């Protein structure tokens, strides 16, 4: 029972990684850059959601809509300020530093204009666990058995829905196919009349909005703070690499693997070492599959 409970928490955590990993994939596909501030966009989503929902008392969906808006505007700004200049200059590392810099600014801004403390974010579904297979107490409440936090269920469902929606969008709509075309071959896509600049802009906005939604989703499970995104961003990056940067399905597999290995290690080995097994597997995996589980192997052409 307890292991099952751990698995569910692990899967929920893993879906958050998967969601942000998915965000990395989207911009990598269209622009071949990684947005290293994505973890901090997750934090931005968490903080904005907290302020609107908890502090100002907005309805949950209103707050969520505002978070999506903030995320997409943020993505557009990031692209214009940090990524486009270095793409134009064809600098090999510019975008790495620029996106890192945006991350630093975001985090510090949250600390200055909001708070340096940790806050509890109330789940819209309530914070007491749903109990299954437990014993009913005299007062009607349940105890023992399998306890599942409603927020964990929400995380899993919403994340899956987002991933599925984006994948469907890519496969079934004309604009989605344009995104795929740009990620396959920019120049040919341009020749086919696709506005690649717009596709890239769209992919950045989509990517950061997804990360921001991830922040609202994860906040009730962890806590809201200005630093909540730093480690999470790195883990999600690892997840997308495990799965292979080009693969949406891979992001989910990578995220789930990291989330579950983390929660099992924390329980059965030690909390301090919870990240290590996942990381070691990542290094070993890449030794045998240099571009991740489902990534495309680069073909050497001379």
């Amino acid at each position, binding site marked *: 029972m307890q292991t099952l409970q751990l698995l569910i928490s692990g899967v929920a955590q893993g879906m958050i990684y998967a969601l942000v990993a998915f965000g990395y994939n989207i911009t*990598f596909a269209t622009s071949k850059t*990684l947005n290293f501030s994505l973890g901090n966009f997750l934090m931005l989503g968490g903080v904005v959601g907290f302020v609107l929902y908890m502090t100002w008392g907005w309805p949950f969906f209103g707050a969520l809509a505002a978070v999506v808006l903030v995320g997409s505007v943020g993505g557009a700004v990031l692209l214009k*300020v*940090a990524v486009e*200049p*270095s793409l134009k*200059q064809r*600098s*090999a*590392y*510019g975008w*790495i*530093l*620029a996106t*890192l*810099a*945006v*991350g*630093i*600014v975001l*985090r*510090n*801004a949250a*600390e*200055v204009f909001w708070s340096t403390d940790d806050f509890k974010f109330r789940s819209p579904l309530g914070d007491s666990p749903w109990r299954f297979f437990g014993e009913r107490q005299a007062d009607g409440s349940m105890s023992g058995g399998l306890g599942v936090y409603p927020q964990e269920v929400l995380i899993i469902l919403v994340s899956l829905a987002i991933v599925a929606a984006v994948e469907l969008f890519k496969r079934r709509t004309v604009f989605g196919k344009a995104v795929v075309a740009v990620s396959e071959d920019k120049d040919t896509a341009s020749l086919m009349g696709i506005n690649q600049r717009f596709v890239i802009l769209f992919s950045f906005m989509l990517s950061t909005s997804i990360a921001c939604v991830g922040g609202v989703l994860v906040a009730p499970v962890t806590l809201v703070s200005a630093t909540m995104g*730093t*480690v999470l961003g*790195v883990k999600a*990056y*690892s997840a997308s*690499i495990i799965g292979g*940067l080009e693969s949406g399905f891979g992001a989910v597999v990578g995220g789930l693997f990291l989330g579950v290995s983390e929660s099992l290690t924390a329980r059965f080995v*030690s909390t*301090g*070492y919870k*990240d*290590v097994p996942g*990381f*070691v597997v*990542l*290094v070993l995996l*890449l*030794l045998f599959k*240099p*571009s*991740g589980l489902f*990534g495309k192997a680069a073909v*050497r*052409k*001379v």
Partner: protein
Amino acid sequence: MSALVPSGKQRASLVGRLLPLLLVLPLLLPRVVDNSYYVGMLSRIVVYAMLVASLDLVVGYIGDVSIGHAGLFAIGAYTVAVLTASPALNTDAYSTIQHWPQLPFLVALVPAVAFAAFAGFLLGFPALRSSGPYLAVITIVYGLIIYTFINEQEGLTNGTKGITLTPLHLGGLKLSGINYLYVVYPMLLLVLFIVHNVTHSFWGRAFEAIKYSAVAAECCGISRSYFKVSAFVLSAALAGLAGGFFAQLDSYVAPNTFAYSFSVEFLIALIFGGVRSVAGNVVGAALVVVLPDLFSGFADYRLMVYGSVLLVMLYFVPEGVVGLVRRGWARLRPHDNAAEHARLERASAGLDVLASPHATSAEAALKLEGLEMKFGGLVAVRGLDLEVPRGAVRGLIGPNGSGKSTTVNVLTGLYTPTHGRQYSFGRDLAPLKTYQRARAGIARTFQNLQLFADLTVLENVMVGLHPSFRASLFEVAFRFPRARREEAEARVRAYALLRFVGLEQAAFDKARNLAYGQARHLEIARALALSPKLLLLDEPAAGLTSGEIQTINGLIVRIKATGVSILLIEHHMDMVMAICDDVSVLDFGKKIAEGTPRRIQEDPVVVEAYLGTHKTSSVVA
């Protein structure tokens, strides 16, 4: 070139000679400024500069982004801390410090460097397999694993509490505080001296060659695995050394220093300062130490200002501070290469660049027997028998997709054939890797140009001379006479090769700035630098104008005259007709005809392969 040397130049060279004296200045600082805060900052810059220089080896020269150098740095710092700390200062019950020997600081640096180097060695293997964002994540994870370890292994590292060290002293002389500068500063100069020497030698060129085109580097006789792993080991050793010195900076180490953000900060420092420059490394280190201090007036906003400054600088100065200074300097006084041209011209006069290969054996320069190359279900080459007699030029022609380039790739060891045997001068090539084949005297050019874009034209040829260097890494690092002599000789030889192909005027231009036709000539010069016995030319005239084709034609004739055996892949029939002794024709991976150029040109099977079944013309082109 005027005979009259301007006096301004003399003065400039005198200043240049005296410039190194300025390097002593920082040592005076503790005497002049009696402010332990500022002197301490300088010591910190010095230690960090070593780390930035180590990062530069991997990021700037090999081209792999590492966001895990904090881990390697931590290994050095903790090795020194554990092996030198006194139990009296670390009295927690769980601490195992008392069980470790208490070594002198300098002795403890040895295992610090060794452990870090070993960690770098381990990191080198994933680096051989993955690249770009994949490798970057490996470095991050590598750093995080080390970070977790030092946090959690409380017995060894005291966990979050950290290890307190006894401040350094030599007899009665205090070497901590402001005096620590006397320890670290000379060390930094030594480290930068070594890094500069190594990176400005055939080692550094090998690193950069691998960065721009690993395939071309291998075809120049450079072992990618050896040099890439070496770069990681060297870089890690330096990071470990820097870590060792860091341990005594505050005489205290704690895990929090070595977090992920530390690696990020140093990547920023490196690119801020400017990659591939020891001056840039120092500037970058200074920036990460000084900038936050400058913004301390902004208190809480400090990091926001820092991040914004970063963004603005990236926008305006993408190549870093040193790049900006260089650009400004070049505008102020354009670099005058005339003197160097004249010197190389004189030194290389009469140099015989293509010594005719001695008659080592009577065997054919190249012999293929039943060569077959399959990619999945596709058979690119089937049952190919081919011979290039010694000193002869054999043409290999065929329509696009007929397996010509695949054959060359098999011959240079880039592909392992499914079947068949390959011999060069009677030697079985099968067990030889790409770089070993290059060293065995098989050189090639590439149909799709594979030049080392940011190296100069001269340096591109010098990469081809790589196998001729004998100096050890140690000799290179300390500029021993042999290393200097070899470098000077290689420059002259490379220049002579450039003159042979007619590119000497462009010797100091970047390869990326060459015109297309010139780039094709450079490919040939680089291949000739290997002193090949067998030269594989993969469509050397592709995309050239008819005038340029004439020049290449003449060049190949001159190469042939020195006795080099050549396999020429080409589409231009007039060229094939003029140069080749014999021609083989491929179609769909099969040899369909062979003979003298004239016979081939009239062979109906060949005409059909090129033009289809209607036999309309006798011209094949």
